[in-house]
């Protein structure tokens, strides 16, 4: 316990030092993303640490959460809806219906050539009908002022609603994925989920009618006031002055604090829920399943169902975190979803923090995120030290100094290796 408190204290100190040595704005900005990272790490830890599910599709769920913010919070585009909104959803229903019909046929009919032909026929006819209905509707929607909208818009609801909605959307996807892919083991599941995440991103990039695709949705509404408005509010400026702060600094810090509070509430709630679950017969059952599925199954535990349950919960948490990130960014940019950043970095957080331990994941989230941002100045400093003995203006020195940006990743790698070296089971290992 002592050691853990010390570790948390140490990470807190990193943030505080950032505040003093760089600026409180920077420290808070990193901290807010740290909170979200911790939420994502919790989601991954539930899947890996509790149940041993190797999900490398985090990015996909995070992206779905991001999509949810657009669908919930952006104002609807009436022209686009008029152009083809209902038609496009009807087409989607038709598509789903086709798949449903095929499955029912497959189940009802006895095996044989006739069944194969019937299923094939349903697919072909369904696909042609679907395309016939979908394509014109899509084109009509995308033709509505393509440079600025060209999509259906959202529901125009408060953006905070997007957080649970993001969770739900991700949970729905997780249910579908889980039903198909959860039979896979270890690395096979990993690459399948990785692939599915890429598919999700491909859809988000290319289906412009849904979320503008690569053209991005900017200017999402915010759950907190705008800094500029604060700077113009007399009372705020007065209060800031009373604190001895200039309006710009005060407003930016205030907004970050508000965000921080919202994120922290989510994080604390999740920690409470997950801790309760982990330290209970449910958690014990999950660990048993992780240790030995065959035996757990023989002891009456429905492994498939439990895997699905945990896959959905973990993914929902990631989806919620995705909605939180997009809210913080204020825009949806599908092109920015890259596995390195949204999947592997989260994994690093969980493993470095200590998988199977919620506190470990949270700590990992804060630490690794801080590093991810701060390796840049750290790397630069290191490079300066390295090149110190070299004569000024020498080719090598110039070359090295020019490459300083690449030291960012190098430093990240070195720090990661060092942390893993000194606590191979994670900073706060599972008991």
């Amino acid at each position, binding site marked *: 316990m002592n050691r853990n408190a010390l570790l948390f204290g140490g990470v807190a100190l990193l943030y505080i030092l950032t505040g003093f040595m760089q600026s409180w704005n920077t420290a808070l900005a990193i901290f807010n993303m740290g909170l979200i990272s911790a939420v994502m790490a919790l989601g991954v830890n539930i899947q*890996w640490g509790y149940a041993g599910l*190797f999900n490398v599709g985090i990015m996909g769920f995070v992206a779905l959460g991001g999509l949810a913010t657009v669908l919930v919070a952006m104002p609807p585009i009436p022209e686009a809806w008029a152009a083809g909104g209902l038609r496009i959803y009807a087409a989607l229903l038709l598509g789903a219906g086709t798949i449903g019909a095929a499955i029912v046929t497959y189940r009802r009919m006895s095996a044989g050539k006739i069944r194969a032909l019937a299923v094939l026929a349903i697919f072909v006819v369904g696909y042609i009908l679907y395309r016939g209905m979908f394509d014109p509707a899509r084109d009509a929607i995308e033709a509505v002022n393509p440079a600025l909208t060209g999509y259906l818009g959202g529901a125009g609801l408060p953006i905070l609603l997007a957080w649970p909605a993001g969770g739900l959307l991700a949970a729905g996807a997780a249910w579908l994925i889980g039903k*198909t*892919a959860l*039979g*896979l*083991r*270890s*690395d*096979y599941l*990993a*690459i*399948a989920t*990785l*692939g*599915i995440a*890429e*598919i999700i991103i*491909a*859809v988000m*990039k*290319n289906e412009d009618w849904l979320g503008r695709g690569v053209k991005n949705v900017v200017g999402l509404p915010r759950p907190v006031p705008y800094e500029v408005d604060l700077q113009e509010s007399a009372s705020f400026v007065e209060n800031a002055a009373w604190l001895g702060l200039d309006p710009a600094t005060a407003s930016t810090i205030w907004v970050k604090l508000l965000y921080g509070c919202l994120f922290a509430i989510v994080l604390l709630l999740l920690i409470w829920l997950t801790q309760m679950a982990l330290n209970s017969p449910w958690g014990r059952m999950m660990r048993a399943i992780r240790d030995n599925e065959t035996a757990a199954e023989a002891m009456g535990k429905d492994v498939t169902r439990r895997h699905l349950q945990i896959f959905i919960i973990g993914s929902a948490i990631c989806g919620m975190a995705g909605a939180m990130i997009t809210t913080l960014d204020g825009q949806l940019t599908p092109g920015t979803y890259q*596995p*390195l950043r949204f999947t*592997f970095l989260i*994994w*690093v957080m969980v*493993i*470095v923090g200590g*998988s199977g331990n919620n506190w470990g994941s949270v700590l990992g989230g804060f630490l690794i995120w801080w590093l991810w941002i701060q390796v840049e100045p750290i790397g630069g400093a290191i490079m300066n030290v390295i090149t110190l003995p070299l004569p000024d203006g020498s080719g090598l020195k110039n070359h*090295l100094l020019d*490459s300083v940006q*690449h*030291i*960012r*990743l*190098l*430093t*990240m*790698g*070195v720090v*990661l*290796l060092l942390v*893993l*070296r000194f606590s*191979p*089971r994670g900073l706060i290992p599972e008991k």
Partner: protein
Amino acid sequence: MDLLNAFVALLNFVIIPATAYGSQLALGALGVTLIYGILRFSNFAHGDTMAFGAMITILVTWMFQAIGISLGPLPTALLALPFGIAATAGMMLLTDRWVYRFYRAQKAKPIILVMASLGVMFVLNGIVRVIIGPGEQQFNDGARFIINARDFKEMTGLSEGLAFRSSQGITIVVTVIAVAALFWFLNRTRTGKSMRAYSDNEDLALLSGINPEKVVRVTWILAAILATTAGVLYGLDKAFKPFTYFQLLLPIFASAIVGGLGNPLGAIAGGYIIAFSEVTLTYAWKKVLTHALPESMAPDGLVQLLSTDYKYAVSFTILVIVLIFKPYGLFRGKAV
């Protein structure tokens, strides 16, 4: 109606490119599968190892080119390849000593090794960019084509051209040799068997007198050979750019997994499956059909199942479907 032209078009735009690309993936996947098979973890640094090996080879190639050494019609890079391999092997042995050995001794879980390899990946990432920069580099020389499209048209009088690059030829040949050699090595030679034994049950391998350090060393050296060769051949055929090598990691892993991790034959099959599904399923059949069908039936549309936007989605869908029916890949691979 002109079946010959249809066939040549298909060959030129689908079969040859997909085969060459498949071979490139397969060579990469062989390295991944080897490390997974013997050392039991997914090595995320493999893409950057390929970049590292290719980088050294490029530097040596440039040196050779500067002093005027060449291989005639073959690319000079082939001459530089052994140097690249040697340097990469050295680098990997050092990495093993500094990084992986510790976790082996600790009997750490595979996931820890995966994370460590992620760390190594970051480091290599930085090193490669610091040395050669993030930009694209060209280093191929020698004859670019075995047959090029224009000559083919003149030669045969067909309206469709057919191109076959020397780099494609080399890649395909090398891949076939590599997989055969690796298969033979692992299943027939004493060292190979001891490597498999080590991967199966480390403690028992010790009790049989197998030297684990040697096994690990040989594995890394083989991986270095495969990674460097794959990296150089890819660079010759396309271009060398560090970021692309990182991006290659994904299809490479997909190939290794579809085929069944730890199985060299699987890596090959996987490479071709991924490559062919990317190229064929989004192919627009218009051209081929226009040649093959009577004029009156020539299609207006593109006759494309899915737009190329979804080519990755398609290849991953295929991957997932294969895994649903064969949960351990086509050739029943391992799982840790």
